[in-house]
């Protein structure tokens, strides 16, 4: 039936021809005013939900435990909630993480722009991935090469309007798994375009080339195995070293795609990211995909209501899931802080057994990455509740084992103190 209706029969004919990788979304908007207008709305969202929403509230203020967990790393200085796609450029330029001291943007690689601009596809095409990442953040800004926030060119091919992979790191990561996105179905692409950005990444070597740790697979144990291998082979040691504890730490970042596709209920049932985050809306007789992407809890009737007629019941359920995940996550954080405290003290003790202490560090590295994989994921558990709760259970167990190992290393039962964070007074507060 679809085949009987070739594209040329579409109601609306394109008004202008859009050039390949056109960075300016307003150009595309001439042909597709509904999609363009709704994309612009991402600039206007400000209201919050219980755990998410569209203000850039500070996660460090909301839960100061994270100041301790990220000590020694820029994330302990500022870590805000994400907001609409139209804000990407503003936010990456303003973040304290890139402006800790005056010259920072000159030293930072342009890699930090990779997921923030519709100029990227054309730039990658021109410079190649390595050429792009070899530039500095400041150079990119000053040269005016990067001017637009996220836009049509990040997800669509001009002309056909089909969804495509635009980030060369995603293309490469899929290739490492023997996959080619060109064989993906339309429904798969409706999730995969988000994976251009909503994925865990790291930067390889001195050149800071953007890479996704997917060669072994995208499940948590496979990603951990990947990083362990990189550590053993010396290709990638750590995102940072935890001060006074000498732990080679890993930072997880927005692994929405990895989390969601790890056998979640919705993924198993064939639901895509766009189904919830870009539900169809009606404009006159016709319907189109809402490009005003935000928390579906702000328009649940539309986002969930077509599939779940009893919207109220599923929303009650979302609440419950998120509360349970949040509380479990806090318990894990308490265990991690107990463990960090123990490892720091054991590290300070020259009599500590080095082997045992290294074992403690390895356990902690793993534990904290698992926790962060949940914490940095932006759905507070909803994208895959069971998988996430199991991950937290495992993380807590490993954190406690790390603490015990540290205590053994130092032969010091005092390191077994629990509830360190709760006893802190005052609690840490984020730098201003």
């Amino acid at each position: 039936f679809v085949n009987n209706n070739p594209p040329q029969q579409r109601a609306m004919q394109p008004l202008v021809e859009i050039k390949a990788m056109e960075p300016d979304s307003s150009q595309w908007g001439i042909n597709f005013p509904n999609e363009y207008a709704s994309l612009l709305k991402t600039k206007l969202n400000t209201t919050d939900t219980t755990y998410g929403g569209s203000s850039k509230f500070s996660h460090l203020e909301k839960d100061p435990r994270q100041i301790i967990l990220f000590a020694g790393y820029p994330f302990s200085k500022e870590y805000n909630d994400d907001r609409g796609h139209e804000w990407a450029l503003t936010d990456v330029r303003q973040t304290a993480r890139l402006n800790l001291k005056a010259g920072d943007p000159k030293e930072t690689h342009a890699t930090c722009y990779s997921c923030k601009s519709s100029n990227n596809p054309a730039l990658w095409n021109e410079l190649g991935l390595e050429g792009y990442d070899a530039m500095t953040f400041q150079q990119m800004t000053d040269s005016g090469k990067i001017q637009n926030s996220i836009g049509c060119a990040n997800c669509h091919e001009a002309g056909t309007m089909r969804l495509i992979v635009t980030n060369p790191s995603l293309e490469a990561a899929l290739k490492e798994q023997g996959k080619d996105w060109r064989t993906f179905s339309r429904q798969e692409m409706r999730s995969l375009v988000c994976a251009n950005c909503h994925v865990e990444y790291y930067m390889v070597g001195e050149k800071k080339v953007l890479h996704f740790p997917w060669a072994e697979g995208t499940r948590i144990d496979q990603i951990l195995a990947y990083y362990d291998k990189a550590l053993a082979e010396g290709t990638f040691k750590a995102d940072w070293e935890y001060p006074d504890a000498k732990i080679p730490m890993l930072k997880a970042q927005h692994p929405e795609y990895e989390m969601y596709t790890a056998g979640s209920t919705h993924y198993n049932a064939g639901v895509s990211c766009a189904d919830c985050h870009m539900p169809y809306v009606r404009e006159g007789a016709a319907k189109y995909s809402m490009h005003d992407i935000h928390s579906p809890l702000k328009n649940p009737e539309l986002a969930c209501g077509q599939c779940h007629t009893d919207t109220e019941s599923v929303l009650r359920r979302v609440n419950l899931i998120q509360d349970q995940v949040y509380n479990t996550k806090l318990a894990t954080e308490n265990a991690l802080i107990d463990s960090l405290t123990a490892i720091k003290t054991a590290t300070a003790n020259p009599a500590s057994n080095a082997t045992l202490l290294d074992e403690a560090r390895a356990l902690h590295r793993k534990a904290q990455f698992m926790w962060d994989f949940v914490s940095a994921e932006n759905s507070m558990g909803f994208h895959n509740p069971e998988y996430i709760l199991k991950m937290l259970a495992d993380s807590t167990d490993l954190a406690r084992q790390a603490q015990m190992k540290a205590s053994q290393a130092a032969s010091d039962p005092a390191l077994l103190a629990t509830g360190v964070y709760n006893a802190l007074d005052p609690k840490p507060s984020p730098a201003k």
Partner: protein
Amino acid sequence: MSKYIPILAILIAVIALGIFAYTSEALTYAGSRPETCANCHVMDAAYENWYHGPHEKWTECVDCHLPHQNVLIYYLEKGRTGMHDVYIFSTGQTPELIRAKPETKTIIMENCIRCHKNTIEAVVMGPQTNDRFCWDCHRNVAHGARGLTLLPMQDSTLYPTK
């Protein structure tokens, strides 16, 4: 005499068929009323859930379940599925839960698009084929929220949970 036998036989057959058709209301099966489908008690759930679903006002079973390209295809398919259902029913092979066959789904899908072409034009067409059914999202339109359930109708808003 013997030459009348075939005529008599035909006559008797016609009368018998007539009586059968009359008593079994067979002619109604050529029509399109949903109640006809519900003659068969195994169609009860389909009927009930359609009746309580959003399309009851606008559609009958055949609007969705039979192809509408042209009259010929319509009646050919009607005959074919009708024969199939009667055969399965009268030989007692009715499955515990009746499920739409893949061919049926294709027919239904064509009908959704037939009626709603304007609404969905911009989103269904595109360079990649539309690889899902409308009712993957619109789970309640045809037969209520949970399809052809045999369970009593339930509504969690009427069922306070705490």
